[in-house]
């Protein structure tokens, strides 16, 4: 099969599939139809993965013809493709599609059709984000995800859903509008410089252009702010707990699993290569915010009484690791960040699924309403414990791989102060155990205090069908992470080379370790010369 066609299908099949789903009458049909569409999309993305050449992972593959989107007067094109950094996120997106549909099977009861159509639209938006190699196209997909999510929270959410939905949209939009301004300005500049005066938003042309260091700073800030809100990086995180708590389970899974990754992905994909100087200037600041987020998110998690809110705050902590890895600029730390995005999508996604399953049974998210349910729901407990351990970074499960690579890479980074920041970040490993095990012991262990918990039903087949693959992936990524790491390594390597090349004119002291391995800075020639002279004189 033609890779380009396949990629187009992976992106747009959900959107196309929304049309027949719209025509379906009964709820069951809508669910089955959506499931089929998302499952087929997932299958196609797996084929794409099989066809993907890991050796050429630094290159954009499967690109269809990049036709102009508005008119030939602008260099704004439908430029999509997949490289090593996008592939896994794309597959995670398509994987979570059917997962969300199955998990919503019984708990979404009203407006079933609208819910599923929005899910499908969301799928296309998210897939597009990870495949776009045109900044404006990226922006369109980025915004496209906003609207369905707004409705998912606003219609199927909890009591304060409207507040949460509007907050979500406003926060994100403030950031993304600023980014739009930056994109337009950047495209204009680059057009004049390298594209014969024609406005361009082509990813590679923008990199080739190389923003003058003097302009990088504020353009970087505009881009990074949009992504920082999306991630979210402390102190822009307060929309997240509200959105998560109010969102329906499916919405939370997508939010945690994919939407947040659009922020970290954006930082890696655009901020680093477009504005390498500024990114390094701001690296310490972002690393500090990341570490603050790790510790702060963990401590605030510990203080929650609502299980869903706890998981939401844990995301702030976990994504702090990803941001730290990105701004440490080493191959190890960036690779760790890439795999940690996937890990977080799986384990936090699973946590939301399980909390949702409990909510479906008992209609409460308060941890004190549970207690001792390990006895009544042993299977659910098994998956919960496994997920919690993955989330807490237990070696042998997925979370450890990302965290370890991020920390070990950041520790060797040349960004000033990094080792100290890593020491603080590593305390997050202790704190994660504190709040996660505390949740376990409050909800699952101890005596059964509420009568209603005695008759709770254990997982049914449908729920198992959701959790078993998630658990299997958590174990697989923990035991055998190398094939997954290998996918993004060439692309990340190329990225670091690009940054290195772009900043070479004004040599920076803070470059990635693998790049600098042979070039000690400052050079030690003086010493050697001195040594040679002395030995000569003897």
């Amino acid at each position, binding site marked *: 099969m033609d890779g380009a066609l396949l990629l187009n299908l992976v992106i747009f099949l959900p959107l196309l599939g929304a049309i027949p789903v719209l025509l379906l009458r009964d709820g069951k049909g809508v669910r089955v139809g959506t499931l089929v569409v998302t499952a087929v999309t997932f299958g196609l993305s797996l084929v794409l993965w099989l066809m993907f050449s890991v050796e050429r992972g630094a290159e954009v593959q499967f690109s269809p013809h990049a036709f102009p989107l508005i008119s030939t007067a602008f260099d704004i094109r439908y430029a999509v493709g997949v490289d090593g950094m996008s592939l896994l996120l794309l597959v995670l997106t398509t994987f979570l599609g059917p997962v969300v549909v199955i998990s919503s099977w019984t708990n979404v009861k009203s407006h079933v059709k609208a819910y599923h159509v929005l899910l499908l639209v969301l799928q296309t938006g998210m897939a597009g984000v990870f495949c776009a190699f045109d900044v404006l196209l990226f922006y369109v997909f980025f915004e496209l995800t906003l609207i369905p999510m*707004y409705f998912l929270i606003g219609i199927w959410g909890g009591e304060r859903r409207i507040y949460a939905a509007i907050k979500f949209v406003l926060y994100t*939009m403030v950031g993304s509008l600023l980014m739009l301004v930056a994109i337009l300005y950047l495209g204009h500049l680059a057009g004049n410089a390298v594209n014969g005066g024609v406005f361009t938003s082509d990813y590679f042309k923008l990199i080739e252009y190389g923003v003058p260091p003097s302009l990088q700073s504020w353009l970087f800030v505009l881009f990074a702010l949009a992504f920082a809100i999306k991630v979210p990086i402390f102190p822009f995180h307060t929309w997240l707990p509200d959105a998560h708590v109010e969102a329906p389970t499916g919405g939370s899974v997508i939010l945690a699993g994919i939407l947040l990754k659009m922020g970290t992905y954006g930082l890696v994909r655009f901020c680093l290569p477009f504005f390498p100087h500024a990114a390094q200037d701001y690296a310490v600041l972002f690393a500090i915010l990341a570490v603050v987020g790790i510790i702060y998110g963990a*401590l605030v998690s510990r203080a929650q009484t609502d299980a869903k809110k706890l998981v939401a705050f844990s995301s702030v902590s976990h994504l702090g690791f990803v941001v730290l890895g990105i701004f440490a600029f080493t191959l*190890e730390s960036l690779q760790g960040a890439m795999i940690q995005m996937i890990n977080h999508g799986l384990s936090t996604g699973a946590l939301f699924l399980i909390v949702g399953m409990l909510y479906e049974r008992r209609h409460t998210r308060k941890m004190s309403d549970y207690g001792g349910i390990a006895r009544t729901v042993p*299977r659910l407990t098994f998956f919960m414990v496994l997920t919690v351990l993955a989330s807490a970074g237990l070696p042998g499960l997925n979370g450890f791989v990302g965290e370890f690579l991020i920390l*070990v890479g950041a520790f060797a980074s040349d960004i000033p102060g990094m080792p100290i920041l890593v020491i603080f970040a590593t305390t997050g490993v202790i704190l994660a155990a504190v709040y996660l095990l505390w949740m376990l012991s409050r909800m699952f262990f101890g*005596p059964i205090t509420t009568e209603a918990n005695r008759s709770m039903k254990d997982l049914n087949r449908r729920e198992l069908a959701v959790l078993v693959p998630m658990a299997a992936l958590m174990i697989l990524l923990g035991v*055998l992470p190398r094939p997954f790491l290998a996918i993004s390594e060439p692309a990340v390597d190329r990225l670091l080379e690009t940054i290195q090349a772009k900043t070479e004119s004004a040599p920076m002291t803070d470059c990635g370790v693998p790049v600098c391995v042979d070039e000690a800075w400052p050079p030690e020639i003086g010493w050697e010369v001195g040594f040679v002279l002395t030995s000569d004189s003897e």
Partner: protein
Amino acid sequence: MSINLSVLLIVLMPLLGVALNGLIPLFWKSARRSEGRIGAIGTAVVAIPFVAAVGLFLGGFEEPHVVRLYTWMAAGEFSASVAYRVDHLSLIMALVVTGVGSLIHLYSIGYMRGDRSYWKFFAYMNLFIFMMLNLVLADNLLLMFLGWEGVGLCSYLLIGFWYEEERNSAAATKAFIVNRVGDFAFLLAMFLLVRELGSLDFGTILAADASISQGTIAAVVFLLFIGATGKSAQIPLFVWLPDAMAGPTPVSALIHAATMVTSGLYLLARMSVLVLQAPMVMAIIAIVGAATALVAATIAIAQTDIKRVLAYSTISQLGFMFMAAGVGAFFVSIFHLMTHAFFKACLFLGAGSVIHGMHQVEHDLKESDGHLDPQDMRTMGGLKAFMPRTRWTYLAATLAIAGIPLTAGFFSKDEILFKAFEMGYDGATYAWLVWIVGLFTALLTAFYMMRSYMLTFEGTPRWPRAGEVTPHESPHTMTIPLVVLAVCSIVGGFIGLPKAAEALGLKNWIHEYLAGHNGHGGAVADPTLHAHVPLATELILILVGSAIAISGVWYAWRYFRRFELAGDELLRARFGRLYHWWSGAYFVDKAYQRTIVGPLMGMAEKALAPFDQHVVDGLANDLAGVMRRLGAAVRRVHSGLIQHYVLGIVLGAAIIVALLITG
């Protein structure tokens, strides 16, 4: 059978047990019923690796033999494999883990009979053995860390095994978190090593003496030692171990006596080449070990729960092992680790057998007789008449841990004291201190262990209606392991004869085996000493050590035979305030709660969470409020519907684009 195959068998069999006893029964309820099959599988998957390890031991091999399976993680220059390293050190450890482990599994068949989660118990125990084998056989620090955290996880699961009791679940969480504090330091040590060496393989680390600075080595060793204090329950991280007794007793025997707690010592022995290059840190290790040994021994004197006595004695004995590591006698720390595994497993399983019996008493008593705590020695006494096999084995292990001449504990403990003396003789001042504290602690050990024996088995029964209600001896699956372990506790010490025996032409086998011929080329390094203790002095030291052990045991025997339980009251009266500190374990728990845990959690709940809600979020909302007021003039445009906002955005963007293009 090839070495590779044996190693695979050793590592993977327990994992098979986890699948058969854990995963299958989890999803198929019918698989939970047959206790016989579950117990048999659970024990076999540990016993088979033991047989394989014995095969390796007898067969001999060129050490180190590395079995590389696949690359686990790789990014850039860094990579770590799933690879196993078989040398004499790891093989000894594997033998202890699987040997003592299979006895404890065998014992559990009877002990856990009738428990509703019988299958789960064996699955956890098998998982524990799997993790422990990864820990000792790993060829790099990262895989070792997998086992390291893995045993932490299993202890969490097993301490909280009876999770309906809030207390047990709390103890489990505490154990995991305190262990994680140590793991934090372990992680930092790995970061440092990767930065300096680019690798975590033992081959690279142990060969890298010249390429990294002394300061870095000292930092790495210190951090690893902090990690070790977590797993091996030393000051300041020992607080989790006594609470860990909340788990079923075989768990205490397996995890908290024979295997998991020894991993810190194993780590130091594995890194011995590096440790020897950091003399300052060695002094810290030795002093911390000595302090822990002394502190824990004093606490043990004042405990009334039989398992708590054993728990503190474990901490104290681990302190002895750290003393050995601190004076560079790594092979001795492994030697004591091994003998300790025998007698401590025997003691714990013996205590389990006693508890088993007392449970029966508790069961037979009526409610009107009041509550009976089956672990409280105050309501025991005179059990020797009812549980002869348990009594004799417990006594044997007690004599061994006390260091009565020719028992296993005698040889290993005396060797530790001798090595400390030797180091002091060689010029290391701290070693003298360690030696004196060690001697004094040995006296205390003999006393408090004999006390536990006397209060439990001798004297008159103290439970209500002792004339009618009596406990029975435990079944054979429980007593056979006791007998095997007791025999090992008595004769196991002959593998490590003192140096003085060289005069008779006898060698110290364990030294040769671990450290290589004359201390060269083995898996474990020896320090270079310049002065040698004369034979006469050594003989005197042996006599002193024997005298101390015998007098401690003898005094306790006389004292508690005369006073029985009242002996405790006399001690309390004699030591007053000091005794209060002992029985309260120096209130370290309370101090941590007050200075660290409490304030941190209080800050999270009372400061950070409101801060997040009101300040961080509040500012953003205020900003929104200001915007809203500013926008009052154009209110009509603000319909509040998100569609309109979106439309606005699209229009706005279009206008900007148009401006840019025309401009």
